[in-house]
Structure formats: structure tokens, C-alpha cells
């Protein structure tokens, strides 16, 4: 999901990234513990609203939602049959339970709602702005560094993978279901790991040579304006309303 932000000019793009992170974080927390379907549906609609305001193209949306929903698909394969509860119908001899279907539905809506807001966030903020904003929000340094380096070197690793894959291809390697294939693939994965480790060592050395003492500095300065404050208040209000709706109906 970490690609360059879509270069559109949306309202979300101009918001202070710190506010976006905080809002998405608390939104996700609340949605994760929601339990009532109507409230969950509200959250889902809100997610779509975010994506709509962020002007994410449909293609991008589908591309980013697919992996999550593949996972959710697997849950649908098992949960309705294994979750204990009242059977509502039988597939052959397998009972499908009411509680299982309900549970799977909730997970589907939850994960999609959270993912949608994440997409809205990532699509309107460049990766290094996100990193710097995390730093400003006092996220532990190590996590921020990890975030930066993952982004920077995932491309280098991908290039290394492509190089290895190509060198296998030009020597006639075709993946089949036999021991030779498994061995070769294992070698390749091992090679990528070892090379990454070497690479990490060299990068660290290069950083030491430039006086690295454990700090990454940001050249960006963030400033909060009126629009940011209004958005923060609005986001907080929405999150609280979601929480209250859940709490009111459970007591």
C-alpha cells in the first residue's frame, strides 16, 4: 500500500499530517472494538466518505482493498462453520451458524472501514511526511527509523529479487512442483536475506561515516492552522459519537 500519494488536490492533502494520523489512529481503535452492526455500518460509510474526499481513484481503491478482502475471504471459509452457535442452514452435513455469519460480517465491515480510512490517509500524505509527522507525535525513534528504512530499501530489495529471478529465468528455470524448484526458491530467499543483511551493514557504515549518532533530523516544520483545528474537532466528535452509539445500546 505504500506508494507515492496520488497527486490530486484534495482537502485532505492540505491537512496537517499529525492530525490525520491521530484521527485515523483513534478511529481505528474505536472501530476495532465496535460490536453493533448499525454502528459498524456508520463507520464503513465514514470510511467511504474519507476515500471520496481524498479523491482516490476506483482502480487504486480496488487494488488496495483486494489483499485485505482476500484475507477476509479466508475467514468466511471457516468462521461460519466453526463458530459455535445456532445452525441456520446445512451445507451437506456442515452446519452454518448464525453467530458465525454475524462474526464474519462484523470482521468484514471492521477491516474494510479501517482500511478505507488508512487508504484515505496514505493517498493524501507522502511517506516521508508521514514519518516526520510520526516523529513530531513522539512516536519512538526506532519505529520511525524502521518506517523510513523499510520504505527506502524495499525498492532496493525488490530490484535484487528481480535480478535473481531474471538470472534464474535466463538459465531456463521454470517453477514446477518438485524438489528442484523448492530448493532453488529456498536458495533465492536465503540469498535475498543475506544480501539484505549485508546491505543493512553497509548503509549503517555509510551513516556512521557521516556522523550518525542515532538521530534522524527532519527539515520539515509543521504548522497548525484554523482548518486543521476544525478538522480535529470534527474527527474527535465523530469518533466520540461512534463510541457513544455503541455504549448506549449495549447498556
Amino acid at each position, binding site marked *: 500500500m505504500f506508494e507515492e500519494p496520488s497527486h490530486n488536490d484534495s482537502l485532505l492533502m492540505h491537512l496537517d499530517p499529525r492530525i490525520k494520523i491521530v484521527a485515523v489512529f483513534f478511529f481505528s481503535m474505536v472501530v476495532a472494538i465496535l460490536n453493533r452492526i448499525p454502528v459498524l455500518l456508520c463507520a464503513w460509510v465514514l470510511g467511504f466518505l474519507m476515500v471520496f474526499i481524498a479523491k482516490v481513484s476506483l482502480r487504486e481503491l480496488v487494488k488496495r482493498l483486494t489483499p485485505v478482502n482476500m484475507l477476509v475471504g479466508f475467514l468466511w471459509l471457516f468462521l461460519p462453520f466453526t463458530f459455535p452457535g445456532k445452525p441456520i442452514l446445512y451445507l451437506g452435513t456442515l452446519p452454518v451458524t448464525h453467530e458465525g455469519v454475524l462474526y464474519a460480517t462484523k470482521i468484514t465491515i471492521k477491516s474494510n472501514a479501517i482500511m478505507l480510512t488508512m487508504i484515505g490517509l496514505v493517498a493524501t500524505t*507522502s*511517506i*516521508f511526511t508521514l*514519518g516526520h509527522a510520526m516523529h513530531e507525535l513522539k512516536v519512538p525513534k526506532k519505529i520511525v527509523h524502521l518506517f*523510513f*528504512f523499510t*520504505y*527506502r*530499501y524495499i*525498492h*532496493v530489495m525488490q530490484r535484487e529479487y528481480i535480478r535473481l529471478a531474471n538470472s534464474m529465468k535466463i538459465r531456463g528455470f521454470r517453477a514446477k512442483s518438485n524438489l528442484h524448484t523448492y530448493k532453488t526458491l529456498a536458495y533465492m530467499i536465503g540469498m535475498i536475506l543475506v544480501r539484505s543483511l549485508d*546491505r543493512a551493514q*553497509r*548503509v549503517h*557504515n*555509510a*551513516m*556512521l*561515516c*557521516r*556522523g*550518525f*549518532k542515532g*538521530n*534522524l*533530523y*527532519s*527539515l520539515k516544520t509543521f504548522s497548525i492552522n484554523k482548518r486543521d483545528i476544525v478538522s480535529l474537532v470534527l474527527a474527535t466528535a465523530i469518533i466520540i459519537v461512534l463510541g457513544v452509539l455503541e455504549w448506549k445500546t449495549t447498556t
Partner: protein
Amino acid sequence: MENNDLTIHLKNITFSYPGCDPVLEKLNIQFQKGSKIGLMGPNGSGKTTLFHIIMGLLKPSAGKIEIFNTPVETENDFRKVREKIGLLFQDADDQLFSPTVLEDVAFGPLNLGKTKSDAMDIAKNTLDFLGLNGFEERITYKLSGGEKKLVSLATVLAMEPEVLLLDEPTSGLDDKTKETIKNVLMSLDLSYILISHEIDFLADITDSIYTLQSGAINYDREIQVHHHVHAHAHGAYEHEHD
């Protein structure tokens, strides 16, 4: 007094990678301020290892290192060394880790304790000096090979080192980028040691060329101008070779 100009002094340095024969054996080097030295040698002869020992990235198994007439041993000693000696790595992807060019070039100065705005100024000036204006917000991993190399050089120069260690700065570069690097090095009032396999390049911009072979350094005699007789098609026409 002559001793004041002794920048890098290696005494009887021995180094071996685990489980291998020593790469460097009782190596002695005296590098004077103002020298511009080329270093050649076969692959695996320990050229890069030598640079890494000078920077304190590898620890020799025996021998003493003195830099600017001060013995250096601990990581703390080497921290100071790294402020004065800049190392340009062989692979630019190892050197550039920040998302944008400007941030990467400003990283060194910031580590030296410069303020944000000073670091930005230094970074911008260095980029200008290398003809890289307009590169500030470019994404480092999306640069071409030549651009990456030049930006790496900028990151090292931004620390205003007294000595440069350049590890094959021109390998894999086109003629235009090579020319830029050559011009930059010639216009700088810096001492440097340059590893390269390209004899012409070394001859142009260094005072003397040494070779590193079987763990020891040999001095290659002073550079002599000489001609080669050669033959090829259309050779009858007056022409020049690069």
C-alpha cells in the same frame, strides 16, 4: 615540523576476514596533507578494506592507526576522524538513505551540530556546486546511476572534509558524469585517495599511483607520457582517441 602534515599514518596494519588469509599484512601508509593519490589493485586485494579500516568501520587485528597525529582506537576516536575524512562508498544505494536529496545531503551537517537552516544552506550550496540545482526534492531511489553517484558525492562534500576517500567513484558511469566528477575533484583544494581501475582517470587527477597487491602497497613510478602504436580500419585519417 614536517610531521604536522601527516594526515593518515598506518603502522603495521594486519587484517583478515574470519576464516580467510590476511587481506592486508603489516601494511604501512603515510599520507601527507595535500596529496592526491591513486590506488589500484586486483579485485579482492583489500582496497575497500583499507578505507574501512581508516574510517574505523573495520578493526585491524594488529597495528596502529594515527590520524592527524593522534592515535585512534575506540569508536569515539573514530567519530572525530569521520568529521574530517569523507568516504564515498562504491554503491550509491548504500549511501543515500533519506527519502529526498536535500534531506540526505543535510544529514551530515546536522550530525555535526549545524542548525536546520545552516544545514539546508550547506546542502543547497553543495548541490549547486555539483551542478545539481533543482534536485532538492527529488526522491533518492528514483535517481539514475550517475545522479545517485553525484548526490552521494554531495553528501560527503557537505561535511566539508579535509580528506576524501573515494572508492571507485567512476565505475559504471557514463563519460559525462565521469568528466563532472573529474572536474569537481580537480577544483577542490582537498587531499584524497582514489581507488579506481581506470588508469587514464587516475593519471589525470592524481599525483602518484600506488598498487595494492598481496597485502602490501607498492609505489608505481611517476607517471610518464608515452605513445602507443596501434592499427585499425580508417587509421590513415587523422583522428584522436579519448
